[in-house]
């Protein structure tokens, strides 16, 4: 009878210990749940952000390529025209030279204007750089959450040493930076400032 009671007590103690262990595991998983959910939610956001950068960079690059192609074409016309001028000058055809010079001057002016358009379009670099920083910061958050999970599970030994340790960059960016979509249009901003100025004057 005593032996049977001893076995029963031992069994009960084991059950209690097992229950405690299970409770601990459940607690740990609950605490990890928010980290996992957050990381899980950030992955598609980061992917979407990277796709957006790709698209916007492609559009901006193509706009610039259009201009570069047009400039190159005009430059070829200008070069050909200069050869023509040389020929006409040798033949002493002054009126035709003047006419050609006017045409070439106009093409050259358009080229300068297009070059400025390209320069203005290069603003996309500042915007996509901020979008990249946004995506990178989301990926860094995921990395940090995953580190927390690994530490909480005391499982660091089960994972290989992190390759390429790096110093994290301080990232300052506008999460809404967009090349084509502005949350508030310039004319709306103008109205806001106009109102304030009018109030100041009154």
């Amino acid at each position: 009878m005593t032996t049977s009671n001893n076995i029963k007590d031992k069994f009960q103690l084991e059950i209690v210990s097992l229950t405690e262990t299970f409770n601990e595991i459940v607690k740990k998983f609950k605490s990890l749940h928010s980290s996992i959910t957050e990381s899980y939610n950030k992955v598609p956001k980061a992917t979407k952000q990277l796709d957006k950068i790709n698209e916007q960079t492609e559009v901006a690059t193509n706009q610039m390529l259009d201009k570069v192609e047009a400039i190159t074409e005009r430059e070829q016309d200008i070069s050909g025209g200069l050869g023509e001028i040389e020929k006409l000058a040798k033949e002493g055809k002054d009126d035709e030279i003047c006419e050609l010079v006017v045409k070439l001057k106009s093409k050259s002016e358009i080229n300068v204007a297009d070059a400025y358009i390209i320069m203005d379009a290069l603003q996309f670099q500042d915007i996509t750089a901020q979008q990249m920083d946004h995506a990178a910061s989301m990926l860094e958050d995921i990395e940090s959450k995953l580190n927390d999970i690994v530490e909480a599970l005391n499982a660091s030994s089960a994972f290989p040493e992190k390759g390429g340790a790096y110093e994290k960059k301080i990232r300052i960016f506008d999460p809404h930076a967009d090349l084509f979509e502005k949350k508030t249009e310039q004319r709306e901003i103008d109205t806001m400032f106009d109102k304030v100025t009018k109030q100041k004057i009154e």
Partner: protein
Amino acid sequence: MANMKILAVDDSPTMRRIIVNTLKRAGFDDVIEANDGKEAMEKLKSEAIDFLITDWNMPEMDGLTLVTNLREDAKFKSLPILMVTTRSVKEDIVEALKAGVNNYIVKPFTPDTLKEKIDQVLSGQSK
């Protein structure tokens, strides 16, 4: 007007280059640059600046803090300030307005918009 000294503040070297080029095209030849609000403060204290163009998101000191600090200083209370930023959320624009910017442009901007806003600020009108 074209003789005035403009300080362009932006942490993006590309943006600074574009702004300086656009200003030069518009006839403003005297343009100096700063990488962030802190550097801008130093330049404003050591040089006579007539007009400030500043970005918002910058390291060390952001554009909004720069504007707030300047407006608290009697010496810079009436310095014309134009903010040129990617931030286009209405609440941000209101915040910039409250901090004391004279006008606001959302990037990307056209050279015409930049010139127009500078002219408006200088003439004391927002529009």
